[in-house]
């Protein structure tokens, strides 16, 4: 199911170009802000929860997910180099599964690790806030990577759609329309984080069972569908 050559090509494509700069810039920004807040305002649990929830989980994680998820597949389809993968006796779902693993790993490294660091900087993991949000980032990384990998497989405008979903749906609608929150990767991951923290600073609108089921269903369905789409991917000619 996992092909090391496909993985190597994907890692190098993701981490070799300008993408790496963007992937690195957001986490650095988060840590820089955390340091500034800690120095200026001192340690405060509520502030830590606000920054980790509003900046890290609601903004940074989905954006990293968009970059890694769409970047693992989209550019190869755009420039036609995917033909070198498709013209091999490898099962299409293997290609998708491998790229998913890579996208998840990259999203986790660039979102969960800085979230943990920022959490410790902000309040030294008081009330388990740093760990709770890190777990949320890890869980969200899986679902985002799967969703955006699918998007990169089916659409040429994957990055735009991905950012619209991440910023408009998750951040804006999520805070305005209560129903939208049920269908939000962010809320599902918060449900898991709530369980970890045990306190009342990390809360979700979705119950843990619902959240877990939805996370698994979305990840599995998106991955399966991306594999099916890749099996019938049509490479347009130059004509």
């Amino acid at each position, binding site marked *: 199911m996992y092909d090391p050559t496909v993985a190597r090509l994907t890692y190098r494509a993701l981490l070799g170009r300008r993408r790496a700069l963007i992937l690195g810039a957001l986490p650095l920004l988060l840590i820089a802000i955390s340091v500034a807040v800690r120095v200026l305002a001192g340690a405060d649990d509520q502030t830590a929860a606000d920054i980790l929830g509003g900046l890290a989980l609601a903004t940074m994680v989905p954006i990293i997910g968009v970059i890694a998820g769409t970047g693992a597949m989209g550019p190869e389809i755009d420039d036609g180099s995917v033909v070198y993968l*498709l013209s091999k006796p490898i099962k299409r779902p293997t290609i998708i599964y491998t790229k998913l693993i890579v996208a998840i790993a990259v999203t986790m490294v660039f979102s969960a690790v800085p979230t943990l660091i920022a959490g410790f900087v902000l309040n030294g993991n008081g009330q388990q806030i740093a760990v709770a949000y890190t777990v949320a980032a890890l869980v969200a990384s899986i679902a985002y990577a799967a969703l955006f990998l699918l998007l990169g497989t089916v659409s040429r405008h994957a990055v735009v759609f991905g950012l619209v979903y991440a910023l408009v749906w998750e951040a804006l609608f999520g805070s305005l329309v209560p129903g939208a929150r049920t269908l939000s990767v962010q809320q599902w991951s918060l449900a898991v984080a709530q369980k970890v923290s045990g306190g009342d600073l990390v809360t979700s609108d979705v119950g843990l069972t619902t959240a877990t089921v939805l996370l698994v269903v979305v990840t599995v369905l998106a991955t399966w569908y991306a594999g099916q789409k890749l099996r019938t991917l*049509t490479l347009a000619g130059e004509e």
Partner: protein
Amino acid sequence: MTTLSIDHVSRWFGNVVAVNDITMTVGPGVTGLLGPNGAGKSTLINMMGGFLAPSTGTVTLDGQTVWRNEKVYRQIGIVPEREGMYDFLTGREFVVANAELHGLGAKAAQQALATVEMEYAQDRKIATYSKGMRQRVKMASALVHEPSLLLLDEPFNGMDPRQRMQLMDLLRRMGDEGRTVLFSSHILEEVEQLAWHIEVVVAGRHAASGDFRKIRRLMTDRPHRYLVRSSDDRALAAALIADPSTSGIEVDHGEGALRIQAVDFARFTSLLPRVAKEHGIRLLTVSPSDESLESVFSYLVAA
């Protein structure tokens, strides 16, 4: 011995018919797929390579369906026309990756790089390669598993004459070894120099199939039309029509020119300046009026 069979294949995109009911069999040796730009060659090659489903009809490789069948790629090597090819890798890394995806190792990759004579630049990034070098590395990636069928989409585009010759030698060698090699081109001379057998596609239809000499003759035996302006059109017309290489002349008053139909191309081109000189006539314009490839093809379709 590998045979690719295309059986009553059509492909349309919305209302546009790109490939219209084509049936052909491609066997061992070098086959040229010839047709003007936009004739449907790339669409056809994409269907042969399993990257596009035929709307109707079937494409099979020794009886196995090509579409949605990854296993056929053990036998197929593909050289796509598009340039995208992991520019951030070196040539060697690229070919090794292609070998690994076939379950082979660095040794097979090295052999393929040697075959295309790219060892000297194998450790440079692909981004720094010239068009011809890219084409050769693509070839190496397609040859790494010693496929019995090689599909190449416009492989000579943008290559300089020397690179072109090298690639032709290589493809000829592949054909001599008994592999089935199919390449597309819109340039008659390329196909003529390389292919033993040609398939002509015009406007999505299969226009001709067979030995290139026969088809070439059909193309060259057709009447050539010229538009000629001179200092004395009528005197020139009288002198030209006396020679059997000219089959008809029309005096076009609107254009102020002669429309000449020549049947023997070689003879006519040496006759015209000679006759003009003998009669003291100055030639002002001599332009072939139907030399574009499309008109050559449409003549062929009519034939």
